[in-house]
């Protein structure tokens, strides 16, 4: 691990973000059919920081995350109010192509979902569908992404084998490599470690820690320790409402709201 990151990690010496409101969730409400699942959320997510969403199941944290790249568009009967802006542009802009938005905002899912293709093809998928087929470009991207996902050394000799033969942690990191292949600006992670063993989890967390030098990362997690470990900001959701949003340290050491305190100290429910 290089020394540079070591120094920046010290939470107490946090470097202020260039853009503290890079992603701006502005009075955002969301409905599944008639059920309101998000209630007027306001939230600023800083640039090149890790922001964690925590909260009990069904609190809306995943819903919010999946709204950031409009993954929820797939679901029937959805409706939203308010706005979400990324770098000042609304993601609901009717002139904005959602595909373009998703290219800009990569996503990693709870369950690793490598395609039943080779490792190589998995990584270059987003380039292929964009019609970028130059071999040399793809090769570069593969190496870069896999290195970025700390997977290069493990798989460089079997790039053309099926991705389904990898271990769970490797698969998840492959998914991360796939997500960063097109160099998105934002990386969404929906409980990326919930299906992984501790070692794999640790590896992914390390990766997140490194990736934040390049990407703005939003992570949903059930694991509070994880949120505490990897994030700079933490937002606590409960029943579709944002209860508290603060610097991670602040939120964990001395939360301002009792619900948060109860939740982080395990006295919840």
């Amino acid at each position, binding site marked *: 691990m290089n020394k540079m990151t070591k120094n920046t990690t010290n939470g107490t010496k946090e470097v202020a973000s260039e853009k503290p409101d890079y992603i701006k969730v502005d009075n955002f409400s969301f409905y599944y059919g008639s059920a309101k699942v998000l209630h007027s959320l306001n939230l600023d997510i800083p640039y090149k920081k890790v922001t964690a969403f925590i909260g009990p199941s069904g609190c809306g944290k995943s819903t919010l995350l999946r709204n950031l*790249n409009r*993954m929820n568009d*797939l679901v*029937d009967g959805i409706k939203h109010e308010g706005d979400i802006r990324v770098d000042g542009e609304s993601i609901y802009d009717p002139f904005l192509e959602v*595909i*373009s938005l*998703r*290219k800009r905002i*990569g*996503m990693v*899912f709870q*369950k*690793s*979902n*490598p*395609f*039943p293709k080779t490792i190589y093809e998995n990584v270059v*998928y*987003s380039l*292929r*569908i*964009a019609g970028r087929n130059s071999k040399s470009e793809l090769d570069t991207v593969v190496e870069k992404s896999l290195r970025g996902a700390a997977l290069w050394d493990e798989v460089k000799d079997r790039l053309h084998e099926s991705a*389904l033969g990898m271990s*769970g942690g490797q698969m998840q990191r492959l*998914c991360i490599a*796939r*997500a960063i292949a*097109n160099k998105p600006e934002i990386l*969404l992670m929906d409980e990326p470690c919930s*299906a992984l063993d501790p070692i794999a989890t640790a590896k992914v967390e390390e990766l997140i820690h490194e990736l934040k030098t390049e990407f703005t990362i939003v992570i949903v997690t059930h694991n509070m320790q994880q949120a505490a470990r990897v994030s700079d900001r933490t937002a606590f959701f409960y029943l579709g409402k944002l209860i508290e949003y603060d610097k991670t340290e602040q939120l964990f050491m001395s939360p301002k709201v009792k619900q948060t305190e109860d939740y982080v100290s395990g006295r919840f429910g």
Partner: protein
Amino acid sequence: MNKESIKSDRPKGEVAVWFSSLGLSLSLILIIGLVSMIFYNGILVFWPDQVVMLEFQKGKGQDVKGSNFIAGEITKQQSKIIKDLNVKLDGLAAQEWQLHVGNKDAYGFSYKFFDMQHLVKESYPQDIILAERNEYGSAIFFAKYLQLKNGDKLNKDDPKFETTLKELTQECKARRKDILQIEKFEIGKINSKIEDIRLEVRALQRKGSNPEIEAKIHSFDAEIKFLQKGYEDLAAKSRVLREKQNENTLHAEIVTGEPMILPVGNIYSFYYPNRLSTVDKISIFTKHFAEFFTEDPREANTEGGIFPAIFGTFVMTLLMSLAVTPFGVVAAIYLREYAKQGFLVRAVRVAVNNLAGVPSIVFGIFGLGFFVYLVGGTLDEIFFSLSLPTPTFGTGGIIWAALTLALMTVPVVIVATEEALSAVSRGMREGSLACGASKWQTIQNIILPASAPGILTGLILAMARGAGEVAPLMLVGVVKLAPELPIDGVAPFVHLERKFMHLGFHIYDLGFQSPDSEAAIPMVFATTFLLIMLVVALNLGAIIIRNRLRKKYQASTF
């Protein structure tokens, strides 16, 4: 412990378990027995049997044409069912044998049961010959001499007799091919040209009558005359060839003592059934087998091969698959990926599922009414009005058969495809979308490849069902004897409007419509054997793919 409790130690209902095992055993016996029976009988058809000669007591009701001798291949040996209370028989006397006696022209039948009660002698003469003929099925006889066209006689004991006969039959075989070439293809070509001109003339006539048109019509006269001349030339040529076929004759005697004169051109092949070694038998068996696959049927389908039926089945199934795959897949993609999942889609899904259980005959009658009469009739009116009232598409044809079966099997493909699509995990879809793929790119690059084996399974099952189905085909274009194949060398090469032959219908037709059903049975068994092999192979393929698939899915989930 007392005795009671020991007794009750035995688990309750074990006898019932034995009883329930009956169902499985019976099912297994039925399926395995049936398949092996068909296999045995189907293979046996090609095996050259010995020819037995039987002598009966005279005047006991076994005489054929006044003779108490008969010869033939034994096809069945069974004990008689004696209904009369006073008769008791045993041993050979209690049996009756069915013989394939051949010589249908002489006897009037080719299969007959003989009561063995009055048997005097059973023998296997070495000299007896079995010849497969062009007409009247095979002949079983003792040769006497060969009358050659130069007037020479070749006695049966002459060492050159067998080889000469063989050479001559070979010669005739080649000539037969020439005749076929002339009569079927060359004359056919001329006929189709004449037909074209006739249609053109009719088109002109329909325009009305003015001198210009009259002149045009007359201009065709010369052409027609030329063509007719060509026709006559060819006909004369084939007549000469046909005459040549009968130049040499084989003089023989059948077991009843009646003389028989066989033009060599009538003999397909011959052999001495009682002189055959095992190697000979195998070679004859192989020859029969190959003929079965490659030759056209003869003698109202009871002899020869079933090539047109194999080919028809193949082409029909292929066309059906071509139609059913895109339709089924598109419908399934719509249902699974596009339609709003709600009560309606659920209902549609149930309905589609149930459609797979709707009897095939319903699809058949629909195909007849819709495809043949409505669509075909309309096509005829628009494009082929000249040849009306002779229908072109407005009658059963391979395209309508394929489409009807496609409609019938489309639920199978839809259900299988939907299942395969739904087996592709949501994560895979989202993963692709999150990479910035469009919906179609996701379907094309991720979902379809992942569900391809499932779709393939469905398609194979559909093909198996389509290949084995007969009832709807009977309404929409299958025939017992199609003069022309649906694909041939005459432009436009693929003739979708043509009627065709089909293995399944061949079975039905041979078994039920042929004038001599006993003579047809061997052929039916052979055809059945082939059809079953085809269908079972397809199904096994589907099962294997399905199992592979299951394993693969299991491996990828953790």
